[in-house]
């Protein structure tokens, strides 16, 4: 990668979000450049969902700046963000299962022909465009008339991504697109993330799975307890270290101690506790070794 980077396409600076006394996000900063993939990683409760909602225009940040193309923005609704080219694909809210692929693809942005009261939904154009656009993304759709309910989870996410790209998204925010998918299906979705990236779209990829994030990401932001725990470019961090940061080596240590104490106290499950503690111990050793190796190389 060149050393002279372009300016970020979308950036948030020191964003905080409060819900009453609850601090959901504090001082979070991240950015994405055109043609790059920024991965937001975090375990459950890390603040990923809140951050997505701030990015996609559902929530307004309580503090901090939201910059798009270098200009400050404040969105009142996701629709406003969408009109600027910031498209969000939600994990399970992306598609309507009972509707056909082409009806889903154009839902809310239907092409029309004719005029006045005879203006109608141009279904022929919609079907052809759907098939073409999917083909451009490398998705070979069988029959645009089939309902989305008959597609696999990976295919649904792919249709949603293809739709966002077709409607001119400049930034694509993907909310756990691979979470509920099998290995192969997740691979398919990752491929479309790279396709979108190669079209010059800035992709924000939210996930809790570093194995999925690492192959496609250019930049990794790790969230924990509503704060940025780490912010690395790909050259700065090997996969193993990313995994370890995600899993939280310190947390595992605490868990191991708790289990060992429980095992010593005895009881019916003592053996299970002891075994689990051993497993965690060996995992911690593995992590330590691999990250050291990476550090040496």
């Amino acid at each position, binding site marked *: 990668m060149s050393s002279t980077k372009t300016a970020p396409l979308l950036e948030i600076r020191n964003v905080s979000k409060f819900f009453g006394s609850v601090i959901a996000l504090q001082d979070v900063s991240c950015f994405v450049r055109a043609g790059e993939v920024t991965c937001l990683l975090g375990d459950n409760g890390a603040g990923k969902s809140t951050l997505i909602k701030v990015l996609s225009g559902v929530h307004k940040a309580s503090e901090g700046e939201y910059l798009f193309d270098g200009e400050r923005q404040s969105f009142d609704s996701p629709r406003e963000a969408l009109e600027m080219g910031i498209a*969000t694909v939600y994990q399970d809210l992306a598609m*309507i299962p009972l509707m056909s692929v082409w009806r889903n693809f154009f839902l809310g942005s*239907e092409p029309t022909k004719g005029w006045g009261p005879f203006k109608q939904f141009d279904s022929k154009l919609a079907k052809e465009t759907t098939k073409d656009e999917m083909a451009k993304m490398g998705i070979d759709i069988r029959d645009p008339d089939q309902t989305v309910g008959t597609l696999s989870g990976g295919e649904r996410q792919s249709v949603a991504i293809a739709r966002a790209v077709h409607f001119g998204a400049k930034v694509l925010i993907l909310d756990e697109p691979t979470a509920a998918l099998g290995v192969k299906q997740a691979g398919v979705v990752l491929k479309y993330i790279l396709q979108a990236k190669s079209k010059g779209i800035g992709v924000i990829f939210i996930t809790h799975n570093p194995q999925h994030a690492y192959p496609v990401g250019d930049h990794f932001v790790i969230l924990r307890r509503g704060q940025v725990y780490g912010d690395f470019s790909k050259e700065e961090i090997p996969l193993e270290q990313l995994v370890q940061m995600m899993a939280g080596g310190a947390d595992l240590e605490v868990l191991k101690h708790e289990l060992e104490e429980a095992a010593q106290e005895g009881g019916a499950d003592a053996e299970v506790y002891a075994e689990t503690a051993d497993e965690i111990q060996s995992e911690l050793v593995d992590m330590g070794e691999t990250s050291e190796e990476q550090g040496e190389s």
Partner: protein
Amino acid sequence: MVSEAESPPSAAPPDADERVRKVSLLSRLLARPEFGAGLGAVLVWIFFAVIAYDNNFASWATFAAIMNRAAPLGILAVAVALLMIGGEFDLSIGSILGFAGMTIMVLVFPEANGGFGWGIWPAILAALVLALAIGAFNGALVVATKLPSFIITLATLFIFRGLTIALTRMLTNRTQLGDLDEASGFGLADTLFASEIHFMGATFRVSILWWFGMAALATWILLRSRQGNWIFGTGGDANAARNVGVPVNRVKIALFMGTAFAAFLVATIQAVQFTGSDTLRGFGLEFQAIIAVVVGGTLLTGGFGSAIGASFGALIFAMVQQGIIITGVDGDWFQVFVGVVLVIAVIFNNFVRQKASQR
């Protein structure tokens, strides 16, 4: 001989996809929401044609009677189908029907007897405006409170039935008003809403044309317009639809105005046809309309269905009614038949839909 008759595989069109099976016409028909109801209508007709053979069920005159009976319910069912595809219920249409009918009657009724002495057309226009306002009120209340429309329209069912009874009695001291044919402008209204068409020896009412017109319009909206796509999206998953920019609230309010319009239309047709109305008109029609829609293959949970199916549902309802009358079975048994037909139809529809989705 066989090898010559069969075309070689290479003759397939170049863009054919090997993963798409040629699905037979039958299974493509099965996937359509109205197919189950269409087949059901044929089966019910055959059933009565055999049972009531001696009573001439299978005759042109009986067919006309069935169609005349189905038309008002069909008009309502078509509008209710759109609403239910959009994911909402309207239990208040029977009350709106009664309210609209009595609005026309009270406005036309002589001033001396507590009415307003209007001509029939201003009265019909006023009833239309009021019905649409009630529909918009239903929709706005559902959208604003986010409560189930079942509850909201159950409330407006009572409110508008009560208002109809109370206001009519307060103004005219009656519960039934007649003599609409004495109002100025009745001739044109009679031609438009209540004329009879004699066709091949049987008498059909013009309301059948209103029904077909509504069904055609609703089908065009559903399948050919942007708004139709919005209706499917709103009923399929309102949140997902909102996320891609569908004006979900506007769609819902418009659909409630649609059912209110259908109630107004039936109220006008019946008031003109019977030259009068009473405060209880339309009572229970909301349930008949929902039955027709569900029998017609529309999902109770929204997002799937058709106006044609709802029309077949109304037709089945009318056939059962007519069949029971014509066979001389005690009319008391009618509701039992309706309930049984409803259960069978829903089970049959589910079966057909599952078959269709498995392909």
